[in-house]
């Protein structure tokens, strides 16, 4: 469950977010559309507890976003633009390190299953430095899978992923939704998002406007 | 004339009064003659002469008497001093002498020996200490007034 109450964020002169009110229930996937620079990433960063909102507050799983950050972080994964992977480590080491910091110690079988699921099992012992952008994205997805979050924040998840990769991601999102997870994703790609999104909204100059997802098909801003 | 200007005008007037008072207080100490002026003008009465004790000329006779030459830029004066010799009477030292010029004997009868007052340093320190603060404060108050006006003008300001 995600609930935003009047979230605003300003960088000096520049007001990025305006009074964003949004509630996403359990088992819902909200697709956040909007032109470049409209504040999508900033909103996700605020919800991922990476940036403090200038005004307003939010709750995730009923926990106050400014007071209960540690508990929120333990239940949330943020699949960001940057993949949060270390170039000098291989896939296994990256997964082991990232999950150990979150207090998870997956077994070798778990790791293998996750890597196979994102179809990079063959490259498990290769340094991430030599990965392509799509492979990195898949590895980050495998990390997210192993962390088993209740809340999933995806920042333009379809960029760099091929058709098969996008299908793996959608499959995973459906699985989370059926397990009462909450998903918020920002995207430009209507066709790839349509099959999983229950609700949608457009962010324009930092102001959120919820719309029926079908209406967005012809929107020039998407 | 706004409130701001009136206030700062007051501060300026007070500052000028203080400067005038201080200058008046120290005027007598500030004015001193150079040795060549003494030779040319031969002033009467008590005067103050500023110069350096010429190297190799200082002779002390007993406890209460000393003679030396006081060197200026273009001339020097023979000096005769009577009284307890102060600690700071040394060769090559810059001094202020208070006494009378004996025209007949061409000797300066010194009564008192003082070190050079460093009014330049004092004035410098006070100006450096207070002037930047005053200028900064003035600039800040002006800006605050400007900002209040701006906020009122742009209708961002609502009375409670």
């Amino acid at each position, binding site marked *: 469950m995600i609930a935003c109450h009047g979230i605003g964020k300003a960088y000096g*002169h520049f007001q990025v977010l*305006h009074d964003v009110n949004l509630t996403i229930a359990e088992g819902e996937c909200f697709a956040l559309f909007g032109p470049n620079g409209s504040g999508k990433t900033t909103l996700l960063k605020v919800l991922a507890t990476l940036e403090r909102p200038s005004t307003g507050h939010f709750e995730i799983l009923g926990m106050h976003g400014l007071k209960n950050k540690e508990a929120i972080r333990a239940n949330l994964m943020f699949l960001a633009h940057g993949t949060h992977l270390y170039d000098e480590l291989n896939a296994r080491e990256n997964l082991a390190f990232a999950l150990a910091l979150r207090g998870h110690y997956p077994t070798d079988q778990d790791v293998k299953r996750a890597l196979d699921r994102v179809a990079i099992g063959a490259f498990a012992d290769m340094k991430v430095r030599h990965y392509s952008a799509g492979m990195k994205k898949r590895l980050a997805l495998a990390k997210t899978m192993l962390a088993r979050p209740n809340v999933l924040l995806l920042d333009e998840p379809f960029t760099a992923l091929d058709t098969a990769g996008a299908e793996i991601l959608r499959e995973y999102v459906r699985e989370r939704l059926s397990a009462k997870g909450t998903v918020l994703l920002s995207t430009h790609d209507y066709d790839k998002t349509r099959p999983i999104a229950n609700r949608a909204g457009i962010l324009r100059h930092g102001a959120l406007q919820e719309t029926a997802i079908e209406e967005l098909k012809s929107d020039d801003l998407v | 004339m706004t409130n701001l200007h009136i206030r700062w005008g007051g501060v300026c007037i007070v500052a000028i009064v203080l400067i005038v008072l201080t200058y008046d207080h120290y005027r007598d100490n500030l004015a001193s003659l150079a040795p060549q002026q003494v030779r040319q003008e031969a002033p009467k009465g008590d005067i103050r002469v500023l110069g350096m004790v010429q190297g190799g000329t200082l002779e002390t006779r007993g406890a209460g008497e000393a003679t030396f030459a006081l060197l200026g830029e273009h001339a020097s004066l023979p000096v005769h001093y009577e009284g307890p010799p102060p600690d700071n009477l040394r060769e090559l030292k810059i001094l202020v002498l208070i006494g009378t010029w004996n025209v007949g004997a061409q000797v300066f009868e010194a009564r008192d020996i003082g070190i050079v007052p460093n009014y330049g340093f004092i004035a410098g320190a*006070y100006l450096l*200490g207070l002037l930047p603060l005053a200028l900064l404060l003035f600039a800040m108050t002006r800006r605050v007034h400007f900002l209040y006006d701006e906020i009122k003008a742009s209708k961002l300001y609502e009375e409670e």
Partner: protein
Amino acid sequence: MTIHRVIRKVQRFEGWFGGSAVLCLIAGLYLGLIGSPPDYYQGEVVRIMYIHVPLAHTALLAYIVLTIGSLWYLWKRDPIVDNMCQAVAGLSAVFTALALGTGMIWGKPTWDTWWTWDARLTSFTVLLLILIGYLMLRTFVDDPEKEARYGAILAIVGFVDLPIIHFSVEWWRTLHQPQSISMRGVSISSGLLVPLLFMSVGMSLLFSYMLMVRTQLLYLDRLLHAKKGRLLSQFHLSKSDS
């Protein structure tokens, strides 16, 4: 948009601070320059003390205020406290620089040198460097929330460091230079104390007044910027709707 109530309070009471500061400083200047006798050892030059020592005291007072404000900000995250911190840091830098400048002017006639690696002069120099670093740091951050947080961290770490810097420089100096040159040479007699007291109190009041003005300035500046930014994006919003 309303003005913050703290700023309203400040606006109402700042005049008293400014007025009493001017009165104290006038009394202090009169006593220091005219009303007090010259010192037996230093002569007239001792009068520099009446401006130098209050400046130095106020610089330290300002740094203590900065530290308290920084702790307060990290605790409460109130933007107005951050405006106060930013204001006090700038003023503290100015007072520290002026204390150093007047100290150098005092050093020339008393020790015949503009600069000596005295423990106090050195720690004030380091303090000035820390404050300049603080002000530079704040200009290099885009997010005002981050700017305030990082500034507070630097101020607190610097505050903890200052006594250690002072002691280390003092030990180092006693090792390398004879004790002949020392600020401690001035024994403060009661004749010197009265003008010093007036100047110190006056300077602290002046600092409080300047702090109030500068806090207002930074607050209003930010308020206006924020409002302008909001108007700007509302303008864009209305354009993209039509």
